[in-house]
């Protein structure tokens, strides 16, 4: 019974089953986006919940990230007399990587947790079953609008994070590191390419999908009362955070590999 090979095999099989079930779950939710009825009111509510109410958190983290980045890269580059590259490093790092990743991790904490808790509570109190008996498909009502809202809200948030992150760098660059304001902004704009921003926004949409999918999936499959909902919430945040970082690597490979 305690054969280690069998244990590994079992773990792999159950992982495969889980991934397969998750993929089917995602496909079913997406298929509901194409078939009426559509829940526009719910979609808007989730959009506001994600895009608008995440703004303070995302803005603060983005500004501080830009500030730290300017400070650190200045220290580093000063050793090679290459302080001029600070603006370039800040804008590149922010738009390509840190904007999307940091904004998404913050949203994963907020939204992944809240979706998992909300849907999980509905599961353990029979509200999801109640939806079915009230002529409403729970996947269409609960999951589809959330996924769409996540995919659309994250690029917006990341755009904000990009702008504020660069502003953070500019703030430190001009007040502490002795750069001229116009010179810093010019260096930023000269170096920036459309692809940097676009790739970041595409990543953001993918991360938005991952966050909302994991939140809904964990909540939808939670069982066992309050404790189960708590576990689902934790899993949603941890899993989406890891997936965001893994997916970030894969997407970076795809966009920028030579």
């Amino acid at each position, binding site marked *: 019974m305690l054969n280690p090979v069998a244990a590994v095999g079992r773990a792999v099989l159950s992982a495969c089953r889980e991934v397969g079930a998750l993929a089917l779950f995602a496909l079913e939710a997406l298929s509901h986006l194409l078939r009426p*009825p559509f829940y526009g009111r719910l979609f808007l509510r989730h959009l506001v919940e994600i895009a608008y109410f995440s703004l303070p958190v995302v803005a603060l983290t983005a500004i501080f990230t830009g500030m730290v980045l300017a400070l650190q890269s200045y220290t580093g580059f000063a050793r090679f007399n290459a302080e001029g590259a600070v603006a370039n490093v800040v804008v590149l790092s922010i738009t390509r990587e840190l904007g999307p990743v940091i904004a998404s991790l913050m949203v994963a904490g907020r939204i992944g947790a809240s979706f998992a808790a*909300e849907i999980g509570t*509905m599961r353990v*109190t*029979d*509200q999801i*079953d*109640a939806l*079915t*008996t*009230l*002529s*409403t*498909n729970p996947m269409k009502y609960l999951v589809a609008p959330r996924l769409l809202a996540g995919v659309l809200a994250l690029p917006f948030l990341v755009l904000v994070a990009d702008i504020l992150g660069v502003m953070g760098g500019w703030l430190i660059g001009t007040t502490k590191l002795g750069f001229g304001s116009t010179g810093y902004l010019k260096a930023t704009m000269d170096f920036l390419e459309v692809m940097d921003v676009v790739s970041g926004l595409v990543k953001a949409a993918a991360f938005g999908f991952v966050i909302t999918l994991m939140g809904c999936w964990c909540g939808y499959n939670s069982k066992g009362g309050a404790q189960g909902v708590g576990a689902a919430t934790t899993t949603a945040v941890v899993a989406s955070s890891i997936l965001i970082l893994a997916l970030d690597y894969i997407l970076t490979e795809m966009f920028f590999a030579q």
Partner: protein
Amino acid sequence: MKDDVPKIRLRGLSKAFGEKRVLDGVDLDIRAGHGMVILGGSGSGKSVTIKCVLGLIAPDAGTIEIDGRDVLAMNRREREELNDRIGMLFQNGALFDSLPVWENVCFKLLAQKRITRRAARDKAAEVLAQVGLAASVGDLSPAELSGGMQKRVGLARAIAAQPDIIFFDEPTTGLDPIMGAVIDGLIVDVVKRLGATAVSITHDMASARRIGDDAAMLHKGRIVWTGAAAALGNTGNALVDQFARGEREGPIQMELRR
């Protein structure tokens, strides 16, 4: 429809969760337009039986016919059309706590687009009046209601779309005896008015005699007795009589320790 076709017919219904066999060949006929009461100890699988009929749980074996049609063979659309005609009061209410009471009550009518949102408030007030609640309750959130009020709102939600089959899962559990009698009265009332077939689960013998024409006893995964609800307490079946009288000694042994 012919009188000899039962509204609901279960044959050999079986369901296990993992190792645990909950239903082990349930056979039951439920007459159209009558009240059926299902009795049984806690955890004997009463809720699971109802959830199988509603299509919320897939049984491992057996057949379920409603109006002579095999519901397990139905496709999704047919199943949804059937569910449109069924109402359900869940054991713990399962009210949507994100929506005000009036939207809960009219949820099914709104989902089926049989009513506009504007008209729904008035409709909700009308249905709430039928269960003895003031129209002002419509604007409260379910969390602000007492247990008895939640049951009544759940009842209002179950009957609002005028179903022809209604399931009541422990409608009076957790209520004081007077409120229990009130709820029973409401159930008898609405069932008579709608001409619906009512299936109720209860532990409460007084309640069973009030809301049931027929009764059935579920024990160890099977229906061990069916008969007239009025006869409960002196049916001649030792199991049923012990249960109905709430006696400690008898053929039913509580599995307190294992």
